[in-house]
């Protein structure tokens, strides 16, 4: 019996294919592909357009940090391009899918580029000579023009040209072929035909994104006028590599507009045109575009027409406030009736209703930007048909269940990113890691079966330390991020004059894949033995350039990075002269250090294939299950006596109205019964030592039972708490003023008699959130929660009067808008503003318990009504004990006390400390659906580490020069990692042999902090890459000239 079971299992494994098809090369597809290869799977990444990058590549900046979008995306694009286990198939489409979960057969159609991808060097000679010029540039949203032989954008991956077959003279009229004659690489091939490729994969990820609906908008939005554009078109205008090279100009006269109007919800949330949902990201990117506009020209006036303000993510609400307070952007709470053009000036007149006073007004603007609805990408219906999966009524791909949005209804096919519903970038990235994890859970038995090692074509250069340093310096304009505030050409001229600097060049974006090629060419051409890039921060880009150097045969420790953006141009925007001088100094100091750089070696360390999950709420449970399922021992620590976290306090959950207890039960049971899972209830982490791959953790259980465990990765899933509003609305004294969570607990009771005497309930939203001071953020989940409770209460007691007092309703995401409209039937919705809070007073001997007085904007006066029960929607807050954990794990908290991720856009579930990951409300208040998706993501990120057998350690370590060491042991005393030991060595001096004590650093354990080097009384310890000489040289270089 057992034998036959075993063999059937084996045959199942035999049929699994350790490869994955990813459809769509936007940020979702890119992240999923990168994660999958790290987990041990081969990836076929299929992209319909000629380059990966997707919509994110088109954006100028990203909110809420105003980070340069392409700059953070480009390193990932390059990583995809370099990855030996990602087969990149651009300009290709999936045309047929057959087979079954674990083993699909895929047919892919490769469209002809008429340019040989392997031969094209991306030099651009062809485009400069191509005579056809009228093709609209699709990447620039058709605002600019391009030749019929073109590269979609300068940083495109692959960096290869192609011919537009509709526009090419030769392909249409049989004459020309100029490109073929001019191309030295002989890459032009007019004989190319569409090609069908067949592949086999175990799973499929759909990551196709969105389109911006504009041309189909009703006339009243005025999109037909020249100076009315979509926000994505405006992103291109703002961008330094866009059609106007970063100058804000309007289309009719190419003049700088003074008054710019931004219109939110231009078509979204409109039931008449079939877009009933909120596009989720517009409130934020409009605030961003207005801020960037003000940064371009401080004298311009920016007006934002908004309805609700949906700024629900980390630092989002604060960002919209900064737009107003610091940048002077003006918001109108309004509804637009129509936009018409003044035919003479081409200005636009916006007719709108001011929702604050109900009056109709006009505003004249020079340029209007519409936040038009984001809709499923064209052709997604066709893809759904090919894949045999369903789409929903909005034409987004349909998820398997409300709480499993990463899976489609067909087994083995997964969804991520915007194709499943509106999302912002960090949510997309977390989802991408989540689907990678889902795939890994399915295909883990065939992990590492199809991988190949990266082949390094250029062997590492031998560096003779006596050789003259030959330093190459690349200085980045970063679009206008550096170039506008620092005089880059002047810096280049100066750096050229420094000793040992062989070559200095500047470029628009250093992080693009074509720049990596030119860095490699520079290193080869000038036989460089050191390289410097002056651009953004090493925290995000050092790895990219180090790898490029390695590919050029330069040891990565011979590379040095200078931060002239985050720490120079961005903080000295009004000090061009001083900023330029600073950039020169910083690079000069790096040159001084660079002269003294040495190549370093890296060693390898084994990894403990076990994981620790802190927190047993829904996020923790999901993460635990996912890791355990893939065969790794998982330790789950929960401080309470039962698993389930906040779900233990809820009645029914949003949006499915299941009982929380019933929803939770199967997860808890699975965790309890899984043989790979160790559960520690009533327990706390009391000590964490070690580093990625090998952490020593002490778990203390109530009653002082102590467990020592060793793990390779840690996931923080500690959740968050509801704020108890001690001092607000007399909460402490009044037993009928309660929080939402207390209401849920009342509803959980089997006996609902308490409801009998209640005739009216008032919900107050944004209690102590979105304040000017204190808690300034939007807590994301309170609105939907309140509406859910209203619907539940109405069902329980239909004659109940329900009133909801709100500021803005946070109803973004698919389906929520309709949920809100449905809920409107069940309650009276009244708006209030922060400057006029509702007043609650106790009635005396009245029919009701409380009188509520509220200022009504349309009536311009107070209204009064009565209620028996007041529900306060207070925000979720970070619990006090985060501090302790943050110290133990060495991970930071953000200003609101939640845990701070490594990068708000592209590393939303990582910590800067490698090996520790984050999910659920510990990161930010989020609902169950989002928590589950994020927990999947965190599990996936951890699996990448646990699945690898060993890992490389850094070459940044300490080294003892034995001859100088006096054996005092002071270094060993201060080493926090016990990486230094005193050993006895025998030294022979002529006739005498002495046994001496000497320090020895274990480079596998050393983390390179450098404390020992400072402590050494005899300067016997060298801190590699940060040596005494190197730092001294930097100080000396500062004022030398």
């Amino acid at each position: 019996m057992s034998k036959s079971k075993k063999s059937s299992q084996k045959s199942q494994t035999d049929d699994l294919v350790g490869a994955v098809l990813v459809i769509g090369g936007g940020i979702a597809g890119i992240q999923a592909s990168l994660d999958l290869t790290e987990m041990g799977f081969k990836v076929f990444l299929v992209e319909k357009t000629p380059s990966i990058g997707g919509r994110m590549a088109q954006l100028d900046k990203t909110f809420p940090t105003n980070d340069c979008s392409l700059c953070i995306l480009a390193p990932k694009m390059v990583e995809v391009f370099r990855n030996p286990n990602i087969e990149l198939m651009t300009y290709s489409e999936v045309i047929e899918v057959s087979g079954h979960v674990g083993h699909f057969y895929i047919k892919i159609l490769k469209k002809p580029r008429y340019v040989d991808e392997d031969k094209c060097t991306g030099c651009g000679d062809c485009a400069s000579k191509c005579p056809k010029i009228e093709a609209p540039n699709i990447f620039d949203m058709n605002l600019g023009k391009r030749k019929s032989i073109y590269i979609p954008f300068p940083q495109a991956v692959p960096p290869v040209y192609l011919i537009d077959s509709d526009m090419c003279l030769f392909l249409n009229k049989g004459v020309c072929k100029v490109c073929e004659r001019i191309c030295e690489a002989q890459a032009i091939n007019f004989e190319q035909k569409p090609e069908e490729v067949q592949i086999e994969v175990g799973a499929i990820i759909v990551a196709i994104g969105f389109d911006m609906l504009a041309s189909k908008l009703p006339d009243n939005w005025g999109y037909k006028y020249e100076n009315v554009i979509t926000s994505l078109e405006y992103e291109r205008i703002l961008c330094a590599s866009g059609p106007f090279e970063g100058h804000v100009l309007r289309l009719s006269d190419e003049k700088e507009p003074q008054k710019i109007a931004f219109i939110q919800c231009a078509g979204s949330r409109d039931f008449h045109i079939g877009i009933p949902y909120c596009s989720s990201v517009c409130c934020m990117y409009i605030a961003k575009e207005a801020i960037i506009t003000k940064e371009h020209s401080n004298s311009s006036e920016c007006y934002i027409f908004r309805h609700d303000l949906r700024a629900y993510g980390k630092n989002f609400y604060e960002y919209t406030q900064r737009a107003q307070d610091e940048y002077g952007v003006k918001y109108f709470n309004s509804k637009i009736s129509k936009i018409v053009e003044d035919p003479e000036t081409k200005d636009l007149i916006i007719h709108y209703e001011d929702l604050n006073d109900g009056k109709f007004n006009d505003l004249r603007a020079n340029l209007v930007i519409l936040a038009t609805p984001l809709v499923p990408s064209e052709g997604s219906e066709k893809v759904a048909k090919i894949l045999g999966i369903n789409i929903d009524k909005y034409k987004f791909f349909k998820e398997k269940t409300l709480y499993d949005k990463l899976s489609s209804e067909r087994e083995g096919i997964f969804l991520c990113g915007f194709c499943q519903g509106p999302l912002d970038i960090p949510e997309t990235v977390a989802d991408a890691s989540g689907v990678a994890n889902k795939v890994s859970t399915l295909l883990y038995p065939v992990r590492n079966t199809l991988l190949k090692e990266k082949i390094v074509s250029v062997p590492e250069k031998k560096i003779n330390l006596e050789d003259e340093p030959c330093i190459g310096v690349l200085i980045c304009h970063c679009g206008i991020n550096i170039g506008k505030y620092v005089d880059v050409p002047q810096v280049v001229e100066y750096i050229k004059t420094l000793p040992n600097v062989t070559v200095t060049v500047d470029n628009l974006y250093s992080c693009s894949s074509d720049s990596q090629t030119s860095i490699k060419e520079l290193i080869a051409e000038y036989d460089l033995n050191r390289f410097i890039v002056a651009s953004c921060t090493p925290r995000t880009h050092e790895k990219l350039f180090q790898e490029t150097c390695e590919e050029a045969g330069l040891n990565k420790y011979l590379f040095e990075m200078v931060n002239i953006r985050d720490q120079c141009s961005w903080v000295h925007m009004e000090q061009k002269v001083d900023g330029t001088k600073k950039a020169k100094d910083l690079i000069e100091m790096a040159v001084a250090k660079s002269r003294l750089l040495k190549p370093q070696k890296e060693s390898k360390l084994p990894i403990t294939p076990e994981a620790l999950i802190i927190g047993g709420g829904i996020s923790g449970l999901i993460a635990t299950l996912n890791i355990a399922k893939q065969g790794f021992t998982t330790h789950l620590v929960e401080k309470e006596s039962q698993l389930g976290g906040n779900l233990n306090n809820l009645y029914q959950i949003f949006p499915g109205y299941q009982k929380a207890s019933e929803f939770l039960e199967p997860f808890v049971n699975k965790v309890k019964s899984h043989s790979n899972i160790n559960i520690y209830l009533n327990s706390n982490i009391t000590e964490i030592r070690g580093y990625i791959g090998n952490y020593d953790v002490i778990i203390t259980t109530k009653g002082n039972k102590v467990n020592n465990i060793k793990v390779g990765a840690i996931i923080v899933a500690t959740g968050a708490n509801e704020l108890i509003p001690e001092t607000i609305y007399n909460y402490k004294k009044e037993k009928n003023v309660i929080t939402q969570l207390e209401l849920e607990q009342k509803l959980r009771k089997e006996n609902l008699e308490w409801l009998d005497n209640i005739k009216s309930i008032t919900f107050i939203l944004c209690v102590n959130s979105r304040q000017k001071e204190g808690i300034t953020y939007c807590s994301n989940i309170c609105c939907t929660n309140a509406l859910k409770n209203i619907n539940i209460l109405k069902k329980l007691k239909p004659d109940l009067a329900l009133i909801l007092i709100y500021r803005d309703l946070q109803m973004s995401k698919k389906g929520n808008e309709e949920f809100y409209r449905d809920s409107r039937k069940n309650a009276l919705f009244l708006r209030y503003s922060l400057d006029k809070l509702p007043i609650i007073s106790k009635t005396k001997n009245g029919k009701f318990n409380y009188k509520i007085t509220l200022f009504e904007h349309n009536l311009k006066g107070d209204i009064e009504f009565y209620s028996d029960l007041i529900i306060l929607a207070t925000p979720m807050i970070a619990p006090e004990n985060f501090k302790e954990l943050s110290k133990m794990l060495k991970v930071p908290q953000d200003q609101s006390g939640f845990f701070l991720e490594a990068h708000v856009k592209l590393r939303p579930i990582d910590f800067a400390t490698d090996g520790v990951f984050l999910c659920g409300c510990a990161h930010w208040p989020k609902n169950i659906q989002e928590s589950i998706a994020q927990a999947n993501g965190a599990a996936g990120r951890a699996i990448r580490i646990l699945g690898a057998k060993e890992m490389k350690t850094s070459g940044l370590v300490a080294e003892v020069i034995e001859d100088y060491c006096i054996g005092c042991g002071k270094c060993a005393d201060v080493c926090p990692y016990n990486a230094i030991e005193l050993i006895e060595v025998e030294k022979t001096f002529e006739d005498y042999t002495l046994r001496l004590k000497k320090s020895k650093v274990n480079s596998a354990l050393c983390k390179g902090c450098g404390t020992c080097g400072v402590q050494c009384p005899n300067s016997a310890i060298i801190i590699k890459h940060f040596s005494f000489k190197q730092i001294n040289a930097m100080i000396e270089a500062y004022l030398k000239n």
Partner: protein
Amino acid sequence: MKIVEKSSKKQDIEFKPNIVCFCCNWCSYAGADLAGVSRFQYPASIRIIRVMCSGRVEPAFILKSFKDNIDGVLVTGCHIGDCHYISGNEFTKDRFERLTKILKFLGLEDRFRLEWISASEGKKFAELITTFTNQIKKLGPLNNI
């Protein structure tokens, strides 16, 4: 007459201090990046030297800076208890408390400051640079002492 004009002109030129700021990779360097990402503006008076931990900063570096006529030196790191390397900044604290005594003896203590800045304190970083720069401006150039 001409000479007088020249010297009075020279005095009119605003003194712009030259300051070295040591940042640890994990907290204060990230805080300085955050100041940039948030566009918090501050004087272009500092040159950041990145080290992995503030525990790497040798007191000798500060003395070397002053010897090279640098007007002010900042050493920044993670808050006590937050050190990425567990306890590196505790040694920093000890070392620089001792160094401050020596600097007092040399009359240089106002030109040196040790500050803890976390990765989320971009604003604090910008404010620190602004106030420290103003402090050094008041003290004047180092070679004038």
